[in-house]
């Protein structure tokens, strides 16, 4: 079985297919933006990660394990950044859907009301986190010790490393919205919450 090593060495992290057509989120997130964001940025993180981990102790680990194993390690910052960005982006695409927004499924709605009081309060916290994250980063709805919470993370950081379970995310790196909204991040965030946010995905992650 001389081929075993070859097969293992070619089992790499893959760019997951986009869960909808590139035009599906238009006009809030245009096909032009998705072309770069998914086709260049996200693909770039996956490709770079695959190159960086060749021959390292991380070569055979899942994305999540790489992220946990490299966080806060100064020597592994490039592997962490690319692994976390690969994971965060895959999660982001599934956090959006065409004809999203609206009301969450009942089970999630109850959890939201228990933690935030109302859906509107939850949306406001998400919008505030997304608009106030300074520089590049992410806003998240997470499950933390049984409670739903909104958190924000900088650059490639992810709640996965903080013992929290991500339920959904909004990417607020400028590349996520600049072609469509330029400096008006709040317009992008509010439109995502109104029209694209995938509450069903968040509900699935609760299980």
């Amino acid at each position, binding site marked *: 079985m001389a081929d075993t090593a070859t097969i293992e060495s070619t089992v790499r992290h893959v760019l997951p297919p986009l869960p909808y057509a590139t035009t599906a989120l238009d006009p809030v997130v245009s096909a032009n933006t998705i072309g770069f964001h998914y086709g*260049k940025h996200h693909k770039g993180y996956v490709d770079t990660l695959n190159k960086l981990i060749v021959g390292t102790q991380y070569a055979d680990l899942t994305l999540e394990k790489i992220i946990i194993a490299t966080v806060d390690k100064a020597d592994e910052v490039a592997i962490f950044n690319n692994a976390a960005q690969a994971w965060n982006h895959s999660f982001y695409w599934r956090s959006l859907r065409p004809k999203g927004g609206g009301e969450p499924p009942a089970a999630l709605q109850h959890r939201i009301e228990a933690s935030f009081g109302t859906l509107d309060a939850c949306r406001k916290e998400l919008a505030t986190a997304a608009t106030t994250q300074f*520089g*590049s980063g992410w806003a998240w709805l997470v499950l933390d010790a049984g409670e739903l919470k909104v958190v924000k993370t900088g650059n*490639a950081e992810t709640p996965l490393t903080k013992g929290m379970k991500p339920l959904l995310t909004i990417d607020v790196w*400028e590349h996520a919205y600049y072609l469509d909204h330029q400096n008006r991040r709040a317009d992008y965030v509010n439109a995502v919450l109104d029209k694209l946010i995938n509450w069903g995905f968040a509900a699935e992650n609760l299980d």
Partner: protein
Amino acid sequence: MTTQTYPFELPPLPFAPDALEPHFDARTMSIHHDEHHRVYVERLNAALKDHPGLHGRTIENLLRNLNRIPSDIRPAVRNNGGGHLNHSLFWSLIAAPSQRAPAGPLLDALTDSFGSLESFRIKFREAAVGHFASGWVFLVADARKHALEVLALPDHHCVLATHQTVLLVCDVWEHAYYLKHQNKRADYVDCWWQVANWQRAARRFGRPVEAAA
């Protein structure tokens, strides 16, 4: 920059928005200056508004003494004040391309510190392309080391040490290049190289350095 105090004002662009075409496009320049930089100035002033004890301080003084700024406005002063200082430097250290390549003492210093002008260009380019996420890349003259250095800093962190003088600076926040270059930051950095203001860099290199704090 060094004498202005609250209320801080948005400095005008020192050239027309289209003056650096085709290297820097007019639309990017307008949004970058008229929106991004303006908002940093407004938010800095808003943070300082109810703190008259800070109204006599220069931006450098505020940023060098962040630990003495009330904690509730510290992030706003750091982020928006840093954005104001760095963008003000950025506008002043780019210009329409001309015949002015570095010469004289500055060229000698670049050669001493990096081997050659071309080696410096490559080193600066690598730092600017390789910096992860938002940030700034600087060429600084370090009076203690008697050398020039390339520094990459995240977000709106600033060069504040009194023995370091910024000679050139490149903004690598995505808003600086995304409309024209999208993910291709390297192409933007090559455009920036074409508009680097060597004349002003040489003037800043030649000026006396403050005593180290």
